[in-house]
């Protein structure tokens, strides 16, 4: 028996065309907002002299995570500046921060909805699986179609790739709140919102923060891929070094990403431990 090939690819392309035709204003609006966010953060980061910002971040690290991380922040960031990678690093950082902020703002509420309703959870879970396992390059394509080249489709692709842990762990954290505590909150006449804000979110916070930490790490891992569709920054340097087989430049840019990754990880991990 010889079944004809299901034209899945054609359908997807038709859907892409249809969406481009009908949702263009929405995509333009999203492009505008995200573009402005990235630009804003980047401008702010570069407005401050590098050395001053290094000191500020080291101070923050000391306050949040102790002197070891502070020392690492100072030396690491100083190295980035010394390698003349400061500006591209800050460009990459602003992409990461934008993607992370949007992921948290959207991911936590979706996670809460999943925790409250099994139908929503059962619908969302396979979508999250899809987002995490579909190779990132594949959704770079529609991102470019909808949002053209540049940093915005990079942010979108980062969000798609990075948002699942926040949703999953918010859901998990809330569901892990012991049933007897939820029962007690009910027994004293809490509204659903009171129960959420006074009991479930505070107790789920460590788990949610672990999800946010993962989200930030994953969006950082997207900076190189995002550079393939025109996002500027240290990721673009890595990408160029690869295409031109320049190990030295690639290594320098790679080190800058590693330093930022370790810093973001330690800072977000310790931010909630203290509480």
């Amino acid at each position, binding site marked *: 028996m010889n079944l004809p090939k299901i034209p899945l690819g054609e359908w997807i392309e038709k859907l892409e065309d249809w969406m481009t035709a009908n949702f263009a204003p929405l995509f333009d609006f999203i492009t505008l907002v995200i573009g402005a966010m990235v630009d804003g953060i980047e401008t702010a980061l570069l407005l401050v002299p590098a050395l001053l910002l290094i000191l500020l971040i080291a101070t923050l690290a000391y306050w949040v995570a102790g002197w070891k991380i502070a020392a690492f922040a100072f030396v690491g960031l100083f190295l980035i500046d010394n390698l003349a990678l400061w500006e591209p690093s800050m460009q990459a950082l602003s992409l990461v921060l934008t993607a992370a902020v949007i992921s948290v703002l959207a991911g936590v509420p979706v996670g809460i909805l999943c925790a409250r309703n099994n139908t929503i959870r059962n619908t969302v879970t396979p979508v999250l699986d899809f987002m995490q396992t579909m190779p990132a390059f594949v959704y770079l394509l529609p991102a470019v179609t909808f949002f053209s080249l540049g940093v915005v489709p990079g942010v979108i692709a980062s969000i798609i790739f990075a948002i699942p842990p926040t949703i999953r762990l918010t859901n998990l954290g809330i569901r892990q709140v012991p049933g007897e505590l939820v029962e*007690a909150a009910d*027994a*004293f*006449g809490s509204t659903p919102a*009171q129960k959420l804000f*006074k009991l479930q979110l505070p107790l789920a916070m460590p788990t949610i923060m672990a999800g946010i930490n993962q989200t930030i790490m994953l969006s950082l891992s997207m900076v190189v891929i995002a550079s393939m569709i025109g996002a500027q920054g240290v990721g673009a340097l890595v990408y160029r070094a690869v295409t031109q087989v320049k190990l030295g430049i690639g290594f320098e840019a790679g080190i800058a990403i590693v330093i930022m990754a370790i810093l973001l990880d330690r800072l977000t991990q310790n931010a909630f431990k203290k509480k």
Partner: protein
Amino acid sequence: MSIIEVRQLTKIFGPDPARAGRLLNEGWSKEKIYKETGMTVGVNKAEFSIRQGEIFVIMGLSGSGKSTLVRLLNRLIEPTSGQILFGGADIVRMNPEQLRQLRRKNIGMVFQKFALFPHRTVLGNVEYGLEVQGVERRKRKELAMNAIRLVGLDGWANSLPDQLSGGMQQRVGLARGLANDPDILLMDEAFSALDPLIRKDMQHELLLLQSKMKKTIVFITHDLDEALRIGDRIALMKDGSIVQIGTPEEILIQPADKYVERFVEDVDLSKVLTAAHVMFQPQTVTPERGPRVALQLMRDNGVSSLYVTDTEKKLLGIITADQAAMALREKRTIQEVMQTDVPWVPPTALLNELFEMMAETRLPVAVVDNREKLIGIILKGAVLSALAGNPVPEAGGVS
């Protein structure tokens, strides 16, 4: 006066409660319904009323449905059918907002595993119920501190729950249940997770608190001793049904069926029955009537001593046949020969507190109320008979 009336309250767990309800009405047993349909009858047509100010104990072994029953009262578990009448309203029919108000204002709850919020201090836990009602900060702190003081935790207000011992944690649970001054306090196995000594202390303290607060308390337990110690009335549950409701004495002395009988057979009655239970109304004599009348009364009643009271029944002393005879011979009055140092107990004394006194005296023990009136006497035979589980004929006949 009853504060809650429960009628035909039923809870069935499973996909088609209506069908299981019909089968129940056709007389199917809990096991048969479970076998045939896979549905579980949690509570089977419970019917009782709770009186204002009493400690109503719901007792049963695990799986008997007692924890389900108490959760039906504030609808932490939704009833399948039946009514719970409270202040003219049916709790079963309340909408979510009415139910919330009921839980906030009228029904407090204390949980077996304390269920304290670990991220809130003792104060934060105790004021939770007030906080969700929107009581303003200063007022709720004041009320919460009162509740904390009431349970003896002053000085711990700013500690976190996991810094406290089990007993102290449950005091916090109790304070949280009391902070908004509810009409009814539900206590679900509240002391079961505590070790035996602490548990006894807590029972004692609950009774002490209760003598001041006069709350209506619904207390769930699987422990008969606990039920007997603190319950004004006890409802015994088996397989989701209530098999008997009565005072501790009624349950012990007149078990409704073989199940209750087996349940209570190991109870140490001497720790439950009181002097009032075994005493009977004695023949007494007033001093004015003289030794001759006293002797005559003793002869008529076949006793060898008589308690002497004034006309108000105030206890004066006791006179034996020998003393009366001596008074007659020497022409003295009853007051001159009677013995004023008599063994006596209050009516609330437990039988096991009587043993030593009864061993030391040959006289019947006097039962004296708080106005020094003689309300009864206790003979050794009556105590032994009661401990053997026999009803005491005169019990209750004495006021």
